[in-house]
């Protein structure tokens, strides 16, 4: 019995083949094997949300999911979602509101916020707080993060875009 399993998945649009131990959780696989350092490793118990990534279109905890479970799945990380523009207005809004601080929680916050903005376009400020309560910010900066998400919800409701803080090249 070999303890290694062969897996194939799509990560940020690219096909990845690997041979891994079943105990390897997804965020370790992404960080250590694929060198995608955007998803962070925090508590490894599902409490902090720093490891949030998307699997088959849904946000999940990368520490509570095995890489072997992602066999055949489509995985997206902050790197891929930044590149394809999915998070552009949220990222602009986070910059405008200074909602990044140390940045450790930011990738998870952005992914959680993106799912909220997509699925609950009419969310109230209170619902925003509840939704992101699963993502710890150790800089105690929730207020500006909530502001940034609410700005995006309001802008989208009006069909507007968050204007960039810095001009893009």
């Amino acid at each position, binding site marked *: 019995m070999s303890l290694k*399993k062969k897996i194939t998945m799509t990560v940020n649009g690219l096909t990845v083949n690997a041979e891994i131990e079943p105990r390897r959780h997804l965020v370790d696989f992404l960080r250590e094997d694929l060198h995608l350092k955007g998803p962070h490793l925090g508590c490894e118990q599902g409490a902090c949300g720093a490891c949030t990534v998307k699997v088959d279109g*849904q*946000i999940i905890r990368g520490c*509570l999911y095995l890489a072997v*479970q992602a066999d055949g799945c489509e995985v997206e990380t902050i790197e891929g979602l930044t590149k394809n523009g999915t998070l552009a207005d949220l990222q602009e809004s986070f910059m405008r509101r200074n909602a990044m601080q140390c940045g450790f929680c930011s990738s998870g916050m952005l992914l*959680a916020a993106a799912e909220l903005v997509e699925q609950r376009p009419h969310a109230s400020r209170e619902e925003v707080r509840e*939704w992101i309560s*699963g993502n710890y910010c150790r800089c105690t900066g929730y207020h500006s993060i909530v502001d940034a998400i609410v700005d995006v919800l309001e802008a989208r409701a009006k069909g507007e875009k968050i204007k960039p803080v810095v001009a893009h090249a």
Partner: protein
Amino acid sequence: MKAAAFDYAKPKALSEAIGLLSEAGEDARLIAGGQTLLATLNLRLSEPSVLIDITNIDELKGISLTGNQLRIGALVTHTEIEDSELIAKHAPLLKVAVPHIAHRAIRNLGTWGGSLAYGDPAAEWPACSLALNATMLIAGPAGERRISAQDFFVDLYTTSLEPDEILVATEIPIATSNQVFYFHELARRHGDYAIAGAALVAEKQGNVLSECAFTFFSVGATPVMAKKAQALVNGRPLTGELIASAVAAARDEIEAMADITNSAETKEHLIGVLLERGLKHLLAE
């Protein structure tokens, strides 16, 4: 921390999963959403020899309506319950309870059946299934059997599932037009485990409640029903006085267990707080 090494299998049929489970014995663990299991593996509180991933098994999936029974497959995720129109219409208690379960990233994977089979006394679904008089459908090497939620939750993290059995689905009688319900839990942070929680269900005619099911969770080794309080309230006009008597009865009859931060006295107090709020909510509905 990292999990200890284990093997992994992903059967495609229920019979295959039961076979693997019987073969591997007590060293095997089933994994569905894995939202509790993975945390315990990472902490090495659990060191199984093999994980049997049941997420490919179609028999365990889906929410469907048959006559006056709503069938919820074991693999249905919390998010599917959150977003289901069938649930909103026929089991509205679940709809109001689901936002209390952890956070969306966890609800996207965690399952109905996993929560029930794990039997965590702080979890929402065991309490709801008890309040809604659910029936568990179980498959094992000897075939299928059914057991009521009342008999399913045996003790702390212990259900009547045998080591080689799998929870397939749950059947819930659909809500009647007179059914009223209340769900709330008190937690330090939204999505954390409840310090105490309540799931109340009753039939309502005017200000009279009947068929009462007052269930509390995170207060004992299993979800518990306040049977004396139910009997008091059943069939009488729900006055302030009756609510006070029911609160006293519930506090008296439920022997709460302390947890790491909250005493048994605190929990018994909170049972009363939740029941009072709940009954007032039902009265105002």
